[in-house]
């Protein structure tokens, strides 16, 4: 005890205590804090960006430029955000097959993991809308009727009453929304791909988007029933007129031919 009490007032004692305390807190923090996870995420993120950059260099750079700055063949991707990538690549529109009025939907050639990597890379070029989480486009808490009203006000001009698609000028078109993943519909509204105007949250709130998606699912989804029978493509009077001519009048003329061919035989006198 003599030794200890002799050193208690040593000028360096405070320093030693401070060091010990620091070591303790540091050790405890190292033991309890989720430091390791944070570190791993960070590295995964940068890994994704690296991988995305490689994919980008192979699949996208020829049109969008080596750094996403855009060329005469493709627009700049700086600031378009992960949502735009997820939509364009996730629906198979990108990489484009050929230049044209509009790049059509086709078979998706990247896996979702690769798409996420590409999205991470593009998102790293500049801030833009992120890929929405499922609760944003899920059916919970959505007002279908409101969605219908919003759809008819904002979308039907191009996409038809129930999203069957329509024509735009010079070979461009608003595609059918049948069978489109709700996530992609959300992203399309958010980012305005190709000829579509964008509807950011300031124009159409998150709730509005959710309502529209729920409406489309109700009138154009997989389990939508057509109470009146065959919907004839939902294209309105043109397909109805064609059907009336071919199957309505066509059948009646066939019946008329049949009736006229079966007649009472004239009596030979």
């Amino acid at each position: 005890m003599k030794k200890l009490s002799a050193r208690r007032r040593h000028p360096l004692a405070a320093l030693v205590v401070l060091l010990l305390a620091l070591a303790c807190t540091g050790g405890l923090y190292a033991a309890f804090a989720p430091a390791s996870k944070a570190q791993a995420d960070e590295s995964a993120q940068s890994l994704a960006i690296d991988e995305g950059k490689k994919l980008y260099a192979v699949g996208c750079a020829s049109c969008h430029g080596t750094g996403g700055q855009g060329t005469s063949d493709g627009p700049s991707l700086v600031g378009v955000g992960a949502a735009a990538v997820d939509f364009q690549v996730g629906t198979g529109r990108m990489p484009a097959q050929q230049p044209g009025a509009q790049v059509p939907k086709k078979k998706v050639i990247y896996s979702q993991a690769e798409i996420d990597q590409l999205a991470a890379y593009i998102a790293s070029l500049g801030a833009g809308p992120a890929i929405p989480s499922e609760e944003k486009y899920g059916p919970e808490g959505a007002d279908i009727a409101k969605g219908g009203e919003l759809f008819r006000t904002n979308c039907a001009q191009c996409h038809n009453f129930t999203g069957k698609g329509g024509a735009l000028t010079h070979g461009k078109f608003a595609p059918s929304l049948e069978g489109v993943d709700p996530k992609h519909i959300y992203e399309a509204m958010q980012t305005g791909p190709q000829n579509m105007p964008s509807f950011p949250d300031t124009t159409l709130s998150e709730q509005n988007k959710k309502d529209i998606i729920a409406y489309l699912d109700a009138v154009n989804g997989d389990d939508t029933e057509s109470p009146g029978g065959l919907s004839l493509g939902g294209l309105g009077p043109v397909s109805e007129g064609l059907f009336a001519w071919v199957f309505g009048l066509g059948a009646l003329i066939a019946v008329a031919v049949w009736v006229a061919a079966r007649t009472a035989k004239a009596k030979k006198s």
Partner: protein
Amino acid sequence: MSTAANEAPRSRGKAPAGERVADWADGRLGIYSLAKANMRKIFPDHWSFMLGEVCLYSFIIIILTGVYLTLFFHPSMAEVEYHGSYVPLQGQMMSEAYASTLDISFDVRGGLLIRQIHHWAALVFLAGMFVHMMRVFFTGAFRKPREINWLFGFLLLVLGMFTGFTGYSLPDDLLSGTGIRFMEGAILSVPIVGTYISFFLFGGEFPGHDFVSRFYSVHILLLPGIMLGLLVGHLILVFYHKHTQFAGPGKTNKNVVGMPLLPVYTAKAGGFFFLVFGVISVVSAIATINPIWAIGPYRPDQVSTGAQPDWYMGFSEGLIRVMPGWEINAWGHTLVLGVLIPLIIFPLVLAAIAVYPFIESWVTGDKREHHILDRPRNAPTRTAFGVAWLTVYFVLLIGGGNDLWATHFHLSINAITWFVRVAFFVGPVVAFIATKRICLGLQRRDKDKVLHGRESGIIKRLPHGEFIEVHEPLSQEQLHTLTAHEQYKPAEIGPTVDENGVERKVSGTQKLRAKLSESYYGEESQIPKPTVEEYKEITSGHGHH
């Protein structure tokens, strides 16, 4: 028979009940002579003569189903909140007309089926009238004495179009509302009076609160009433004129060969009514039409792509879609030629076919009655005109659906629009020339068949090695049918100078008529049909085959 004959003397004192009732009625209504004259009316048999019946029966079906629909439809534009069974519209504000149409579709027993029968029958009715009119046109059945009946039929078609349009507008859904807006725009484009007419029609600014109830009376009362009258007149005239028939052995301009109205045609027509009703009901049960619940209630601030009228108004849609958006701005007023010109062409397209019979009779100067139908090939100019008119009509229908052509055939809507603009002028000319050539080719073929017989397809080798195809001579009936038509000589002006050298005055219309007549019946326009001498020479000669 024998029992009836035996009973007859016994019951001489008192006639059977049926006879007494008939006698009672005859004494007051004079039905004996009426029935005697009409029950044995003869009708010829041909499937194309039943197209008119298709129209008549679909009209009856439309009336029957329409009466049912009026029981549940509320022609009111008062705004209500929807609380029916269709979930995607719950709580939406809409007019009572739209809400009651939803109720008919979802909450009235059989309502949706009846609505669909009503609408499908309307489309079939118009299509039937169109084809019926074409049958009458191409066979020349509109000639004297049937010109007035042709006009009755034409009026029925036009009134049918507008009855259809007003009916299509009643549910006050987004699609039909857009159609009404289109109509309002067309009315507004009329210089000076357009605005006044529009305000009169809608009771103020579009859409107002009146048009559904106004269209309702027009749709269920005014137009169908006129149509019913015309229809009765049309049928009475068919009875009075008797039906036309195709040429054939034993068929002349003075007789009608066929079956009597009673009992054969009564049975056939009655059965055919149920067949028509059946076909339309099956179509209505299979396929949906005008799903107004998916279309949504009308609001003037909303519009959808693919907004087209029903098919019979499609050509007017085509006119407006392909017309360049020209306008003239002067002295603070705008003349919207882009809408006004289509509005002017719209009735002209219809009038062109309506007045044709009168033009033809003027050109040919033919004042005789015709009860034997022409085969279209034997009237090449008429047939060519009809096909040219159809070309215009269908080109405009393409224009009216240009967006669907674009999306379904991966074309540019601009390219289609330009195609329609060019084809509107070029198409009928090409169609006219091509049809006339085809008709002449068919006339040559008929001539060849008459003179040389039918190609049998049998190749025969003669003893000396020559191969010939055996031609089968036609039967007398076939020969008659192929040569029964009359061939006209072009009307000539005649010498303009008489024997004394005095010049005769020839008016411009006479010259025009002679020219048109030449184009109708000149050497270029018909192949002389084989004469008896030609036929005899060829069939009696040796070495012909």
